[in-house]
């Protein structure tokens, strides 16, 4: 654990990212205390600029406090990001493990299926899914998970392909362990580090996706979110720049921090790899 932290801390960007992320987490947890009451309620004059009338970040067209919206929106963004990543991981890990462990035709079928999902324009599919199943927090999480699992399946499959012929797996097979216990007890724990790194990047892209959906008006109508704030500021950007600028900064900082933490995790979990990061692809 100590060594893990030392490797993580060697990447200064990752430490900064972790600090920002903890800050956003604190904001999300403390939102009901900092801004009691609903963020949808009128708090002051409409279009009050930042700093005036006691509004730190100004108010929107209906006099709602932008800062309160950002604090409450942090809860939705983090929640959607985390839950949809967990769902995508469940789908991706199951399919990837199935394909990689069994190989043969099962592998072929699953990989064609994965390729199909990687070819189609995923954002358009997400829009379609949320629109058809009406925008609720559940349908948003479902849609994001449906379009984000393919990279997980590919990574897990590759790990399983290389691990399944190792001695410790063969030993378990000879001992007569069941397939399920080999997959979950022997192989999966050894494939965890790339999954963990991928998961942190997936939370980041899920937050971006959620913000894009709610920007288009596909957010849960009962939940304040960052994308909704920017969307409502779009048409009045000439008179109220603060309505779209600040929520955007919140998204930027959160997603940036998650990406930085992801790189730090990658360094800490694979200390032997060279520190050459060629990009996401």
């Amino acid at each position: 654990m100590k060594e893990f932290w030392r490797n993580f801390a060697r990447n200064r960007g990752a430490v900064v990212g972790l600090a920002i992320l903890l800050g956003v987490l604190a904001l999300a947890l403390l939102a009901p205390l900092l801004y009691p009451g609903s963020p949808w309620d009128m708090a002051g004059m409409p279009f009050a600029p930042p700093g005036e009338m006691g509004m730190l970040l100004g108010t929107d067209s209906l006099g709602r406090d932008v800062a309160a919206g950002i604090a409450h929106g942090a809860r939705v963004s983090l929640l959607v990001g985390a839950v949809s990543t967990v769902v995508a991981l469940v789908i991706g890990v199951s399919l990837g493990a199935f394909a990689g462990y069994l190989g043969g035709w099962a592998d072929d079928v699953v990989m064609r299926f994965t390729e199909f999902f990687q070819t189609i324009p995923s954002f358009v599919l997400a829009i379609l899914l949320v629109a058809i199943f009406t925008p609720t927090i559940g349908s948003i999480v479902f849609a994001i998970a449906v379009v984000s699992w393919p990279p997980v399946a590919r990574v897990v499959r590759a790990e399983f392909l290389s691990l399944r012929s190792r001695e410790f797996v063969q030993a378990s097979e000879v001992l007569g362990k069941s397939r399920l216990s080999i997959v979950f007890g022997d192989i999966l724990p050894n494939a965890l580090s790339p999954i963990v790194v991928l998961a942190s990047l997936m939370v980041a892209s899920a937050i971006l996706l959620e913000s894009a959906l709610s920007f288009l008006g596909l957010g849960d109508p009962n939940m304040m979110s960052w994308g909704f704030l920017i969307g409502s500021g779009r048409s009045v950007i000439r008179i109220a720049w603060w309505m779209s600028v600040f929520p955007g900064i919140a998204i930027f900082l959160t997603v940036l921090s998650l990406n930085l933490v992801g790189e730090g995790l990658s360094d800490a979990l694979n200390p032997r790899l060279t520190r050459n990061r060629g990009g996401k692809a």
Partner: protein
Amino acid sequence: MGASKLPGYLLGRVVKAAIVVLAIVVCNFFLIHAAPGDPASIIAGQSGAADAKFLEQLRAQFGLDQPLHVQLWLYLKGVLTLDLGFSHRQQMPVSTLLWDRLPATLLLTGAAFLFAVGLGVTMGALAARRVGTWGDSVITVLALAFYATPLFWVGLMLVLLFSVTLEWLPSFGMASVGVEMSGLEAVLDVGRHLILPGLTLGLFYVAVYARLTRATMLEVADQDFVKTARAKGVPEGRILRRHILRNALLPVITFAGIQAGQLVGGSILVETVFAWPGIGRLAFEALLARDYQVLMGVFFCTSVMVVLFNLVTDLLYALVDPRVEASA
């Protein structure tokens, strides 16, 4: 290159593309049926009238009284003849709506793509020649920043800077309203409207392509055939262009194919921000009106665009890399 095996390779790709398109159509069909409520009442709800007679008529029109596999067959037949249904909101066939909007979207995504590849590859090549300098770090920081910024927000910030504050560029639509223009003047007018949305959509990929080009160029530069060329006394500029860059472009082409879907998805957001009259804007209008027929049409149309773009990148790949024949 010997083109003997190229047709076979391409035929394989075309068949694969056709299967993907077919799968999308089937996917669309089941989505209509997965929607809560029966399709007839959804369509009736969109057109504003929902008396029992109209519902009956719709059910017969869409073959909803038939078994599911017959319905699927009817639907497939319709799509193959480019009949994508009828938008009761807009009182127009979906395919007509899509055809009208397609050129604007192609212009926007094409411009953004060329801008991204052109600037990105140049920046990456420059960074690879001067590893460790400030220009090198700029690319890394830019890529990190653009990975984290929502596309639509970048668009709004550009509007804020260039349209609202500086008043240099238009922020709305594709052409000036209420001005009579002809020939070159009209082209320039569209060009001026294209700058901000094109920049917004392209900027993210500039950083991505720059990073990718830089990484692969550094990798290729270490390989034996480059050392050989250098030992033969080939001029440095020629080595860079003919030996390193040509090989470094392969991953860029592959990546462009992978990213096509994202580019099209991004155009929905960019067109919404800039009121660009393309397919993305159509999707946004359909969303507001809950016009599912049109949304499905957009999904189908954008998917076909991505599949076709992938075919083009496959072809380009085969042209740039002669080795691909052997593996096809």
